């Protein structure tokens, strides 16, 4: 088998072996239901409490401010629907950005159909939200503002703390949410210092298992549950807790934040090295922000006159896994929202590849990828649709 080079870490990551080991132990031995009254239940509950403590210490928050969910999508849904329902008497206006993940942009469509009004903030050519437009958009009936922490398609980190400060200055009652699915594990985020009321996190982007995540909910934030049932997690999110998933996520998060600065610095070095080399290929453009102004792990590059899906499969053939900047097919173009919003030219929308790194990637892997690109891009440009 060819050696595998996995550069699609924004899609998902490999689970840390230590996490697998812990989860496997929980599934095989400590499989109790945390709501059970007997020992088995108590044992399971301990894992949940411990996970909460781990995450709370990373976020420097109280452990009751962590609500476990099934992942980023559910956290985003709850942040929007839960606050919309709880605050609808105060107003029906919500502000978000044009470059959010579909977990938010599809939820706002649902809310629009149910009487809420949504303002979508524009971004500049690097994907950075325009704070002036936020100031203009705020209204007396605004109940929620949501701005993602880091984008999932291009390398950009949003001015979340500034935005939240603007919002709170306008009206401290407005709830501020951030989708930190791509950012948690890459940034030290202390919600209280940044005026964040709600924050969505997913486990499988940080070498944890899929199907689990959490929503940070600042104490006393007005939010309703959106899933009902047996009253677990104080009625805020019913359903038996995913004990192995939750414990696995907490361990993965803990490991991500060990030797943190060193690891992130290494990522930035890898990113800059890679971008520099790839941009030597003629007809390439980098999307987002270079260096520390962007995220350390997301690299979006457009290759003129190359169809991203074809390049993706050619790289795949060499054991290199990446993602096309936009999921697109000949029958039904579903071009990327972020790339469009930052003004990537139409002919490049379908020519953009996202490489996303993790700390396990090596310079050798990137060299192999650069070599492959140098070989494939000119080859693919010989055969284009016309």
């Amino acid at each position, binding site marked *: 088998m060819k050696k595998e080079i996995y550069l699609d870490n924004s899609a998902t990551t490999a689970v840390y072996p230590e996490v697998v080991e812990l989860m496997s132990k929980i599934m095989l031995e400590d499989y109790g239901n945390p709501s059970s009254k007997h020992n088995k239940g108590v044992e399971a509950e301990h894992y949940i409490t411990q996970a909460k403590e781990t995450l709370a210490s990373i976020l420097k928050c109280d452990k009751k401010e962590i609500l476990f969910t099934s992942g980023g999508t559910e956290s985003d849904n709850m942040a929007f629907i839960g606050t919309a329902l709880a605050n609808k008497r105060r107003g029906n206006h919500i502000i978000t950005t044009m470059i959010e993940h579909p977990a938010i942009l599809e939820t706002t469509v649902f809310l629009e159909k149910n009487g809420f009004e949504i303002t979508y903030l524009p971004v500049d050519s690097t994907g950075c939200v325009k704070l002036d437009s936020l100031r203009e958009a705020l209204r007396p009936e605004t109940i929620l503002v949501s701005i993602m922490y880091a984008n999932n398609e291009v390398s950009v980190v949003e001015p979340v703390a500034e935005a939240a400060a603007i919002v709170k200055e306008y009206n401290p009652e407005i709830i501020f949410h951030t989708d930190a699915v791509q950012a948690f594990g890459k940034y030290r985020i202390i919600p209280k210092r940044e005026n964040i009321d709600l924050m969505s996190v997913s486990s499988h982007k940080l070498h944890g298992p899929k199907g689990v995540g959490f929503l940070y909910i600042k104490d006393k934030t007005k939010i309703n549950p959106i899933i009902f049932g047996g009253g677990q997690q104080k009625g805020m999110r019913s359903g038996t807790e995913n004990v192995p998933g939750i414990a696995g996520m907490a361990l993965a998060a803990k490991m991500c934040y060990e030797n943190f600065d060193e690891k992130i610095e290494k990522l930035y070095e890898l990113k800059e090295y890679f971008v520099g080399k790839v941009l030597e290929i003629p007809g390439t453009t980098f999307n987002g922000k270079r260096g520390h102004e962007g995220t350390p792990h997301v690299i979006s590059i457009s290759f003129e006159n190359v169809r991203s899906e074809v390049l*993706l*499969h050619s790289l*795949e053939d060499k054991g290199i896994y990446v993602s096309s900047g936009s999921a697109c097919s*000949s029958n039904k173009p579903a071009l990327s929202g972020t790339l469009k919003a930052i003004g990537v030219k139409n002919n490049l929308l379908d020519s953009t590849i996202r490489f996303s790194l993790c700390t396990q990637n090596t310079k050798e892997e990137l060299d192999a990828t650069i070599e492959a690109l140098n070989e494939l891009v000119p080859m693919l440009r*010989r*055969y284009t649709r*016309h």
Partner: protein
Amino acid sequence: MYKAFLIKYGEIGTKGKNRYIFEDMLVHQIRHALKKVEGTFDVTKENGRIYVEGTSEFDDEDAINALKKVFGILWICPMLQVKDEGFDKLAEDVVDYLKTMYKGKKMTFKVMARRARKNYPLDSMGINMAMGEKILDAMPEMTVDVHNPDIYVNIEIRSRINIYTELIPGPGGMPVGTNGKAMLLLSGGIDSPVAGYMVAKRGVKIDAVYFHAPPYTSERAKEKVIDLARIVTQYSGPINLHVVNFTDIQLYIYEKCPHDELTIIMRRYMMKIAEHFAKESDCLGLVTGESIGQVASQTMHSLLVTNAVCELPVIRPLIGFDKQEIIDISEKIGTYETSILPYEDCCTIFVAKHPVTKPNKKVIEKSELKLAEKIDELVKTAIDTTQTIWVE
């Protein structure tokens, strides 16, 4: 509730001396179809009828759904089978059966007895009359109509006695395997799986060939074609699917030939390669999903030009169908949802904005001369590296 099925077949009955071949194949295909249903079954041929009897517990609906996909079956009759314990007991069973099926419904009926076992004390006429009376006594809401009844209460006296009233339509057609084999050119689209279904319906066994073009087409596109083939196998039986890597041929044509002729030349090479595999596996023809005028490569002119490379007959079961008619069948047979998954197939990758719609055979052949240097070798490599997948 049912313990057995009586299978009625249509066209086979007219096949004269060859009839047994058709019947045996139908029995074979029924057995094969029932393999996927939980339970064990006995399938037997008896005096021009086929009986399917469960020899273990089974789910009626699953069995009926499997039988509905066996070509050659005209009607599926779920039956209650009882032992002969005298006429009074039989009458009781018949009434019980009718009560569970039709209780409270105002219906007309006619008893149709068949006394195949001649030592039964009553003759057919006698059973009809006596049973009619018993039913009328027990179910006053029923009335007799001997000309146009709502239901026929069929009673067959054999070693055991079969009772049935229901006729569930089968798919018709002829048992697969009674009409040779053909090679289907299967793409990921809507048409070709339907074309495969249509020839299978006429008793033709099918194998298939799919052209894929990595990295221009994805692994998912190939998976999709395998999935489509698998759906077709529910009707056609197992399919040997040949997956041909067509990329190098396609790129070579792209380099050497005028781009507006690309599709038509490509189709000609697909036909040649398909014919190679057809001959290799004793197929008597090629099958495509073409329909006149649907796209540039399916105009009468184009069909003439692609047809010219083949010796075997090219069967085009959808030739006179409109797109919507084809879609209707694909929805019925269950391929539509898979067909519309948006993965690019190799026909569309390099398609020109304005491909020729009225190609001239001589012109195309002249263009193909530009391929002389390498094309034979590329075709040979494509054939040699073809992956064959057994789909069932």
